[in-house]
């Protein structure tokens, strides 16, 4: 083997126009962005204020930016799959040969789940939770930065596979034995393993950070049962991360050992058990779907309460339902393989356990409903996304319960009905929640609201597109069509596939409107400026600080007292802050910016890349350098900056001055 392991010129797909163009385009775009930053001389600013920032708000924003970029990439994959498949009806060959089509659906799922939906949720939690808790920072700011950059590193590796080598052709969960070296000898599964492993470690760190922040650092007086609902769902989702991601790490490690060192955990031969892989991956995988949906539930709780002009109905009941879902989500994983022949008792038990989860979800839906009851409803964009969610998610939950009936799942498993189910809950659940949260908290992050007209257009187009695409796929599933077909042999499916392509076109318009909204809003930012810090008449503490909040969030920490609704807390918090004279402020110590996260992730990328291509010396070098970075970090002796009382007073007055 050469110095560069398996890597040589043939890794670049010169003869394959689609990945080459896509990869080339992506690289050109990145170079253009880097060039622009260089020419404009923004590097020092970016480095100081963003890349090395340990401010949870900045990190939250970077998570969301990464997520938006990856959602677009994944969406392009989706457009290709749907159009290609429609072209193969009636014997056409489409434009994606199997080896590409299979990579595309694998990359689509991997990117959307790990690098789109997850970072979006983690980003929102990062940005919002400390503000809602009334604290100045997260528990582990540098760990937080490292977590983000590791996630970015994983995303980079996945996208690198576009131009160097290939990505997995196994689906987003690489079932053994297909993913073993004997059935997937290329580098695709290796890219998957290292990207997800590195990103997964980042996610685990983020989860640990958020759990600790919520458990340990709430504002004085904020008991658990006074936390906003979003903090509760963030806590539960992060606890799920902490409990479930180690399973993923272990499972992928075992598969890695199989592939690299000839172990036999999941192989056909030598006593390995592929079924064990399926069990383990879903023991992580089912909790994972609740990691994705719980924070979205939190967003909807905040948005619906705010725009109903009422506190959340049945708050304690909501908390109970969230905790209930958190616990039960670990007891249902077998519903993903009722068709593996486990026997009637086992299937029935897991089917019943699965449908029991729907009780918690049902309770939540009714409580949102009664939050609206007796309210004064306003319908700005975040509220529209929430109502769109309420309406469509019920259908997705219902089809989920249908799939939880083993005798029905026997004909729907791995069909397009299943595909429609999980898109129904992930798109109109997680993604709608993500966009609702993005629109809702954008003014908090940047000090101006997003354009309502384009926001509403984006909502209606996305909703319509979504219903058309996945309505058609539900029916196609009932028509017996299974997933992941590179070409279709049954002509009757044609019309449904054409309808779903039409829906995709509408969704493209929705995405375009969403992007336009951002561009238009930035252009019109002066007209859209919000100087109050509270554009929506919000009900929780994040609206009590100016927008964008100062680095230390709160000049004086709010006192949360009594059993009153948050709305009153907020009123008091603002009053108490505005009444202060300069002498009331105290110096504030904040963590100093640090390159640790970025440097660590850089070496993680090097290690991952080297391992994919089996460039052993480079992997070893990366490991040594990563260890060096850790030592250098451990030896630091100055790690905090202090704002003097006068500085705090000045910053606060400047921001409040704008509001006055």
């Amino acid at each position: 083997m050469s110095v560069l392991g398996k890597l040589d010129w043939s890794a670049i797909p010169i003869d394959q126009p689609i990945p080459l163009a896509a990869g080339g385009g992506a690289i050109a775009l990145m170079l253009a962005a880097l060039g622009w930053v260089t020419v404009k001389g923004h590097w020092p600013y970016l480095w100081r204020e963003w890349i090395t920032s340990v401010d949870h708000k900045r990190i939250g924003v970077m998570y969301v930016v990464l997520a938006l970029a990856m959602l677009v990439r994944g969406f392009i994959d989706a457009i290709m799959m749907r159009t290609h498949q429609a072209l193969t009806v009636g014997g056409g060959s489409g434009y994606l040969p199997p080896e590409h089509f299979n990579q595309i659906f694998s990359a689509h799922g991997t990117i959307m789940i790990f690098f789109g939906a997850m970072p979006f949720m983690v980003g929102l939690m990062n940005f919002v939770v400390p503000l809602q808790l009334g604290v100045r920072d997260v528990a582990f700011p540098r760990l937080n930065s490292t977590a983000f950059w590791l996630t970015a590193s994983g995303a980079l590796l996945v996208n690198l596979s576009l131009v160097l080598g290939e990505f997995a052709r196994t689906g987003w969960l690489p079932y053994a034995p297909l993913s073993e070296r004997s059935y997937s000898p290329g580098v695709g599964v290796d890219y998957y393993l290292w990207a997800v492993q590195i990103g997964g470690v980042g996610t685990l760190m983020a989860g640990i950070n958020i759990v600790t922040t919520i458990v340990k650092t709430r504002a004085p007086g904020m008991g658990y049962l006074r936390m906003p609902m979003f903090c509760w769902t963030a806590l539960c989702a992060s606890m799920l991360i902490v409990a479930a991601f180690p399973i993923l790490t272990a499972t992928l490690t075992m598969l890695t050992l199989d592939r690299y060192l000839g172990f036999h955990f999941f192989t056909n031969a030598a006593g390995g058990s592929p079924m064990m892989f399926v069990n383990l991956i879903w023991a992580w995988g089912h909790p994972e779907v609740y990691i994705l949906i719980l924070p979205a539930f939190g967003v909807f709780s905040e948005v619906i309460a705010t725009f109903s002009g009422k506190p959340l109905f049945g708050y304690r009941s909501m908390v109970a339902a969230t905790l209930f879902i958190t616990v039960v989500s670990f007891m249902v994983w077998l519903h993903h393989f009722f068709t593996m022949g486990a026997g009637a008792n086992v299937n029935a038990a897991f089917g019943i356990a699965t449908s029991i989860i729907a009780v918690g979800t049902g309770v939540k839906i009714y409580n949102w409903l009664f939050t609206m009851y007796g309210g004064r409803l306003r319908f700005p964009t975040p509220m529209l996304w929430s109502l769109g969610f309420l309406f469509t998610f019920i259908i997705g939950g219902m089809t989920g319960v249908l799939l939880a009936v083993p005798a029905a799942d026997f004909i729907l498993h791995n069909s397009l009905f299943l595909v429609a189910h999980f898109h129904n809950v992930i798109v109109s659940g997680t993604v709608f929640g993500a966009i609702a949260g993005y629109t809702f908290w954008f003014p908090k992050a940047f000090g101006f609201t997003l354009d309502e007209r384009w926001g509403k257009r984006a909502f209606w187009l996305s909703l319509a597109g979504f219903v058309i695409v996945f309505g058609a796929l539900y029916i196609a599933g009932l028509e017996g069509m299974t997933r992941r077909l590179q070409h279709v042999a049954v002509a009757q499916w044609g019309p449904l596939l054409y309808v779903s392509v039409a829906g995709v076109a509408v969704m493209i318009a929705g995405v375009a409107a969403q992007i336009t909204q951002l561009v238009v809003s930035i252009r019109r930012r002066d007209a859209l400026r919000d100087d109050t810090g509270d554009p929506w008449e919000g009900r929780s503490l994040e609206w009590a600080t100016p927008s964008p909040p100062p680095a230390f969030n709160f000049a004086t920490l709010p006192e949360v007292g009594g059993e009153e609704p948050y709305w009153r807390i907020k009123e008091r918090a603002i009053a108490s802050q505005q009444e202060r004279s300069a002498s009331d402020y105290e110096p504030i110590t904040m963590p100093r910016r640090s390159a640790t996260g970025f440097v660590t992730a850089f070496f993680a990328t090097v290690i991952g890349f080297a391992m994919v291509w089996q460039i052993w010396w480079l992997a070893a070098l990366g490991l040594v350098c990563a260890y060096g970075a850790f030592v250098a970090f451990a030896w630091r002796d100055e790690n905090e900056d202090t704002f003097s009382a006068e500085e705090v007073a000045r910053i606060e007055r400047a921001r409040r001055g704008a509001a006055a």
Partner: protein
Amino acid sequence: MSVIAPRVPRAALALALAGLASGCSGASVLDPAGPVAEGNRANLLSALAIMLAIVVPTLIAIIAFAWWFRAGNPRAKHRPEFVFSGRIELVVWSIPLLVILFLSGVIWIGSHRLAPEAPLGPAGRALEVQVVSLDWKWLFIYPDEGIATVDRLVVPAGRPIRFRLTSASVMNAFFVPRLGSMIYAMNGMETHLHLQADRPGRYYGQSAQFSGDGFADMHFTLQAVPPPEFARWTAEIRGTGRTLDRTSYRALAQQGHAARGLAFGRVDPGLFGAIVTQAIPPAAGPKPAPGGQQVSG
């Protein structure tokens, strides 16, 4: 097969869904052609009916509440203090709970009645077919008739079929939508499935578990014929010269579709057992290619 659902909504539902599926019954799971598929559909529709009973009112309530309590409606009573009601919470928890309780009955009974390993009808009447999923085709062995076919499954209509399944390499799922339940085929394992085609006809079948580059071509035809015709067909196949033994199996197990439509008049009776017990080692996969790629075949 059991149905635990009120009559009327079920009939209405079936009608509505059949309407959706109208015209194209090619592979529809709502167009059952055998007792198992009927049972699957009955379970699906009863569960759907039970849930729609609460889902539909809830959907209506969402729209109604959102409309009525809009800020501009002077007639809507503003009740900002309405944030908790023990009675409502009780109802809110009990409704889903009761529905799920009801549904649990459907789940329990359905999974037992339709357990894939449960025989249909009296023992001894069923036709045994051994199924081996290969990259990327299906091998069907008829042990009692001593014949085997590739991607073509002919069975007598009205007679239960007892499938024993395994895989030569990676996982697949054996699925004939109009006959009902699917089941995984796995190397080194044996799974069981019982199906029956009530009427003669040609039914589309396919692998439902992704298995690699040639996966999309892993479809086959299940042809149900009247019993006398089945006897004629087996005799005809038996007359073809080809033999399926370990050597020809090894050639067959190579990746590709070349073997599609092949038939064997003689079969090594120990072959299926040898595959299940891995006495015949798992079949090979794709080969590594330069640039970190891989090629099938």
